């Protein structure tokens, strides 16, 4: 289960906050009262962050990564059938294997299957928007789903979220815990989104936008989008100057 080449007790690189949205992003109004104002306290490495929960296939059900099937009651869900896949690596490009990836999204009409979503678009009785999988030995993950729709949200009077899928990643330790959102290349709402716009680095925004991956599509069945994810790497020390996995 554990990655044999992982250097488990090596400390992680500090998080580069310039690649992330600031806690206070006034264009995203809810952040104003939910953002800490005191500086974060930087920790040296302790065992509490170098460790983290370990998940195995026993934590998963067979259809967890197939959103086309895992909530189907009367037939297939409505919408564009998709494969969403990619590779989870660390900052050095090394795979993050056997690691839990969780995903959630709204349906093709832009409605979440959630007791607190009151948008007028209809529920799809064959779609929950819930997905989980483990990355394989090479860090790959793969889901089947439908393309989520855009939807309006309460921020400014006429704000709409671009189509997006929420991702949750654990990686090898609690220090690498991350939630993010994947967007779809070509979505005209992307430049208007205050949540995506809270990221100031253009490259960081572009890396959240998944390109179409025609080669990975299934002819006459599913289009594919590819979303690669990078988790924090470990600090490079002199003795790590060696072949990968060495």
């Amino acid at each position, binding site marked *: 289960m554990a990655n044999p080449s992982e250097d488990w007790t090596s400390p992680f690189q500090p998080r580069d906050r310039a690649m992330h949205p600031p806690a206070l992003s006034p264009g995203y109004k809810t952040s104003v009262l939910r953002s800490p104002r005191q500086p974060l306290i*930087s920790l040296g490495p302790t065992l509490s962050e170098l460790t983290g929960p370990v998940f195995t296939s026993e934590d998963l059900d067979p259809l967890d990564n197939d959103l086309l099937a895992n909530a189907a009651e009367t037939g297939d869900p409505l919408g564009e059938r998709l494969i969403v896949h990619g590779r989870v690596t660390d900052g050095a490009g090394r795979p993050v294997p056997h690691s839990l990836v969780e995903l959630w999204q709204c349906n093709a009409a832009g409605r979440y299957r959630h007791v607190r979503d009151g948008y007028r678009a209809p529920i799809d009785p064959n779609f929950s928007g819930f997905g989980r999988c483990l990355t394989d030995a090479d860090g790959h993950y793969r889901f089947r789903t439908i393309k989520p729709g855009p939807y309006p949200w309460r921020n400014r009077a006429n704000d709409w979220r671009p189509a997006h899928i929420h991702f949750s990643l654990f990686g090898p330790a609690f220090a690498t815990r991350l939630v993010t959102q994947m967007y779809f290349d070509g979505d005209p709402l992307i430049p208007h989104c205050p949540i995506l716009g809270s990221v100031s680095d253009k490259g960081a925004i572009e890396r959240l936008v998944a390109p179409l991956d025609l080669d990975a599509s299934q002819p006459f069945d599913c289009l594919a989008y590819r979303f690669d994810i990078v988790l924090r790497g470990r600090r490079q020390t002199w003795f790590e100057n060696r072949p990968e996995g060495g």
Partner: protein
Amino acid sequence: MSASWHLPETASQTAGPFLHIGLYPQAAGLDIRTQERPNIVAGPGVTGERIRIEGQVLDGTGSPIKDALVELWQANADGRYAHPADPDGASTSENFRGFGRAVTDFATGLWWFETIKPGVVPARAGTPAMAPHLTFWIVARGINVGLHTRLYFADEAEANAADPVLSLVEQEARRRTLIAERSDEGELPVYRFDIRLQGEGETVFFDI
């Protein structure tokens, strides 16, 4: 090695108001994993003092947040983590992963865990000894990057005084935001831990 192969971390994005669908589906009203109790961290067979942890997540006006997720990560009663980075790591065959999830109640904003009190974490793998503590990670709508904090136990004053992480917090008043008071009035000992995102008594959050 050149810096050119250094890839920046994928940007964080808020978990949004509907995080329950993916992270706690029964709270979203979904008929998925309804038998699971992710906020019961330790079953009856696990060694250690059984405790309840509860609190609210409060915004800058002091109002409870109703749509947050709180994750807990902890050592077992011997201060060992069920993870390969711990050279004396606990075995998962002890039926204790040390991981839990709770969501804030949609009406009251209260979250809670039932678990066992962790032990002192001994120094090892080049890392220092630490007082018993729980690690928390909080996400919600309006939180752009998940927030890390720790709970320390008020009845561990001696260990807390020597803790290398608490001592990083310069102001005594801020240090107190990490210390949960114990109440022995209920069926289980209860530690109350309110997480204040902003304003007076803002909880200490860590850049880990």
